[in-house]
């Protein structure tokens, strides 16, 4: 701040001496502009400090085992009226602008400093990242992420913080967003998920063995209503025994590529072009159905233990999801319809003879900026 203040003062002095006559007027104007600049810088600094303080409080509370409760508020409701998709796309355009080579290391270091990224594991020299967007979806140096050698373990597909995990037992297979509010797995994965549920267990298991999800896929568009996901519960009943879930949150500074958690056969994907609410700690406490309403790509398939589904959920700043196994898929596209809740767009790989098998640790997708 003192550096900026000094520079601003020097600029003001230079302007005053340039103006020569009319000393009184120029003095007033020159103090007004640096004053506003300093005030803006101070305000941004204060906001950043408050954010750090709140993050620390949240971290401490979580360490003490405090469960956050759902508390809808007016600010969160206001988000529904904001053009978050447009903001996200604009942010994407802004961060994809190529910056001069000399400026690139400063930009990357500033981002890393603000969001705690580890620059030592970045694959390329910082000068080679032409834009902030390129740096954001950076790859890592070989060997930076060793894969657990135990064949009887499921590995993490991303870098992040484990928010929730457990076994799905209750009716409707509900995942708790925060204490006091849950959403159903069927709403998250989609109406035509091959998710095995108790009510249809025999039928579903036969399907998995003989003729998996393809027949169900044909009726996809008709079964989905235009209602919001919160009122749609397409697969009632209990999940079969041994159905687990794990929710992992990625901070802006984290490595943003998604890897395969196991050896599995991906049968299809489903793209929900929903909203783009932020996904931070506060948003999970204040926005209902956050994970069910946001834009997401769901991959479904089979692994050695049965069903496997992975949902990559976008947010305002990270709106688009890129699939390496299907590069032509476009997400975070401009909305052409007014309805927020459109049926998901589905593609099943197997019927087209392009069954996709991925190995544990293989890169399958990435979150892009905007």
């Amino acid at each position, binding site marked *: 701040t003192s550096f900026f203040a000094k520079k601003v003062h020097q600029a003001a002095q230079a302007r005053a001496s340039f103006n020569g006559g009319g000393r009184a007027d120029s003095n007033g104007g020159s103090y007004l502009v640096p004053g506003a600049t300093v005030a803006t810088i101070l305000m941004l600094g204060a906001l950043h400090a408050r954010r750090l303080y709140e993050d620390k409080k949240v971290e401490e509370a979580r360490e003490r085992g405090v469960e956050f409760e759902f508390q809808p508020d007016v600010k969160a409701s206001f988000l529904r009226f904001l053009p978050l998709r447009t903001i996200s796309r604009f942010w994407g355009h802004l961060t994809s602008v190529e910056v001069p080579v000399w400026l690139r290391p400063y930009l990357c270091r500033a981002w890393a400093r603000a969001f705690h990224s580890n620059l030592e594991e970045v694959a390329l020299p910082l000068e080679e990242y032409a834009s902030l967007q390129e740096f954001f979806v950076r790859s890592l140096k070989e060997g930076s992420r060793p894969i657990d050698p135990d064949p009887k373990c499921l590995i993490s597909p991303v*870098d992040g*913080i484990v928010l929730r995990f457990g076994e799905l037992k209750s009716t409707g297979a509900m995942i708790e967003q925060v204490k006091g509010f849950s959403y159903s797995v069927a709403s998250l994965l989609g109406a035509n998920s091959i998710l095995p549920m108790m009510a249809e267990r025999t039928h579903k298991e036969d399907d998995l063995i003989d003729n998996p999800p393809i027949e169900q896929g044909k009726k996809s568009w008709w079964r989905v209503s235009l209602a919001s996901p919160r009122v749609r519960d397409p697969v009632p009943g209990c999940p079969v025994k041994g159905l687990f879930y*794990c929710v992992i949150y990625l901070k802006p500074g984290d490595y943003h590529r998604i890897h395969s958690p196991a050896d599995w056969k991906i049968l299809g994907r489903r793209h929900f072009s929903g909203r783009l609410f932020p996904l931070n700690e506060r948003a999970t406490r204040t926005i209902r159905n956050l994970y069910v309403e946001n834009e997401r790509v769901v991959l479904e398939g089979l692994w050695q233990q049965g069903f496997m589904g992975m949902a990559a959920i976008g947010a305002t700043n990270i709106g688009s999801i890129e699939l390496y196994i299907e590069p032509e898929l476009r997400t975070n596209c401009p909305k052409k319809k007014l309805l927020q809740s459109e049926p998901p767009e589905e593609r099943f790989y197997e019927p087209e003879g392009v069954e996709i098998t991925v190995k544990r640790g293989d890169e399958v997708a990435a979150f892009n900026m905007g």
Partner: protein
Amino acid sequence: STVVLVFQAPTSESSAKDESSGFSFCVKKGERVRVGSALGRWHE
């Protein structure tokens, strides 16, 4: 951004009362994980 994994895994038979069998998570809530680190293991 967030990733949600939903998967089937072996469970311990309640009649056997053998806690060492079946799938169990080896992470805690709020813990930082990295690509490739184990989320959970199963025993048969």
